[in-house]
């Protein structure tokens, strides 16, 4: 990592650690989400301007707070009520309780569109700037700014509350929050090794959010499941690509590169989650990854266990993609012929999905149908825009 990138990573870490807390304190202090959010953004922008030149202060939270407060006293000149509250306030806040949960539930309220939930969460809870979000998602800055402005206006005008949902609402509302974190992770994780390597690492933000949720909601098994899922993926990150950015498939990955301590920690999280006896999609996906992670070699993989877990997952959250992965496990349990017959049943749902064609290609190759396999790989190639996947498919078409 070059020195400039190292500084950016450190800045991101410090901002992430403090921006959400500051936002939560300011909302409870002045009682207005959108005003508080503006002040935090100002403070974060100031930090990104000053810190690289002057160094990160020894008390970054106090620094951010002082800027937000000074700026607040300035812009709130017309609103005496907010101004008085802000003038009397001191850092650290009087109530030390962590209000970031209320923050994230407001950002991920179902009355907001998904894209706005994602942008708001990144801004308010992780302290990303509009420019950083735009760069991470490869979309124009004006689009992000507009999403955030609209979402904040809706929160204020439609009366979206700033609080943790009541017990009877918590399940579905938490699921929305977890979806946002999971989408962020996918965006960051799947794009790694490509042109975004130097921009803000969303996988890091997702890990941070899941860790925060795990600390604040330690008895929610799906939170622990998602955290384990993210940790297990990241534990294998080092073995996923060649230095030039080519995909290395699971059977060929160097398992000594995996972070076995992290795998052990994640497995413990899964066990803890299982103790609550409320299985869910994230716990099951994490358990599947754990089975892979615990096999010392590809040949030692416990495919029967994986097949069983996919069957359970398809029972709880049925989807054609889950069925596709279940069929891939079946290949190692009962053979390619049975797997192919399961895969072919998914034709209607998945004929536009490159991995469906790529899976068919592998199974056809197993069964000796090389021409059909190449044709399936060619279909897959036309359906993916990911350069690393394209390169892998081209290799197979030419050599296998």
């Amino acid at each position, binding site marked *: 990592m070059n020195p400039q990138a190292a500084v950016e990573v450190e800045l991101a870490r410090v901002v992430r650690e403090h921006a959400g807390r500051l936002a939560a304190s300011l909302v409870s202090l002045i009682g207005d989400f959108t005003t508080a959010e503006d002040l935090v953004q100002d403070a974060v922008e100031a930090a990104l301007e000053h810190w690289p030149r002057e160094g990160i202060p020894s008390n970054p939270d106090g620094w951010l707070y002082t800027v937000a407060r000074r700026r607040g006293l300035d812009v709130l000149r017309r609103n005496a009520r907010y101004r008085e509250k802000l003038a009397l306030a001191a850092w650290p806040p009087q109530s030390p309780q962590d209000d970031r949960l209320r923050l994230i539930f407001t950002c991920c*309220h179902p*009355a907001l569109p998904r894209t706005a939930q994602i942008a708001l969460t990144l801004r308010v809870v992780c302290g990303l700037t509009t420019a950083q979000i735009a760069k991470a998602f490869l979309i124009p800055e004006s689009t992000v700014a507009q999403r955030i402005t609209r979402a904040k206006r809706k929160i204020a005008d*439609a*009366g*979206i*509350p700033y609080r943790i*949902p009541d017990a009877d609402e918590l399940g579905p509302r938490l699921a929305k929050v977890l979806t946002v974190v999971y989408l962020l992770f996918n965006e960051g994780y799947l794009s790694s090794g490509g042109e975004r390597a130097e921009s803000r690492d969303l996988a890091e933000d997702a890990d941070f959010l899941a860790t925060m949720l795990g600390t604040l909601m330690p008895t929610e098994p799906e939170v622990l499941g998602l955290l384990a899922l993210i940790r297990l993926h990241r534990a294998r990150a080092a073995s996923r690509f060649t230095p030039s950015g080519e995909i290395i498939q699971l059977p060929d990955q160097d398992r000594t590169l995996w972070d076995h301590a992290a795998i052990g920690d994640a497995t413990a999280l899964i066990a803890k989650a299982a103790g609550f006896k409320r299985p869910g999609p994230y716990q099951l996906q994490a358990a599947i990854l754990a089975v892979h992670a615990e096999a010392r070699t590809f040949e030692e993989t416990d495919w029967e266990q994986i097949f069983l877990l996919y069957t359970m997952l398809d029972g709880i959250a049925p989807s054609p993609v889950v069925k596709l992965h279940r069929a891939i496990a079946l290949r190692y349990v009962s053979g390619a012929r049975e797997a192919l017959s399961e895969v072919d049943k998914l034709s209607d749902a998945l004929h536009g999905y490159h991995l469906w064609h790529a899976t068919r290609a592998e199974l056809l190759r197993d069964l000796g149908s090389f021409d059909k396999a190449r044709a399936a790989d060619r279909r897959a190639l036309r359906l993916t825009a990911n350069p690393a996947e394209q390169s892998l498919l081209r290799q197979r078409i030419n050599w296998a």
Partner: protein
Amino acid sequence: MSALKYVLMFVDTEQYAADLAAMDDAERERAYARVRQWFADNADKITSHAHLMPAHTATTVRLDGGEPVITDGPFVESKEVVSGFAEIDVADLDAALRMVKAWPACPVVEIRPTTG
């Protein structure tokens, strides 16, 4: 916390109208009773409400083209038509959502805050 005002717009679909028409008298009476019960359960939050006559009774006036133009029917031709309104006074959007999730009749409800 200061209360907010919202208007709930109840929206009928063709399917819902057909389902209602297919009911016998006793079933329909039970459906109406569930609606009356919902209004009774939420009486403390509902400040006013109205049920509209069917869409074929609607008349639309367009004032954006010089002379007012009067046409038969609702302002937008759609399979979904507004069939009633209720104005409610609740703490926030979550309270409105909670009410609406228990609504026992037509399949779509739009929640809109009012100004001021």
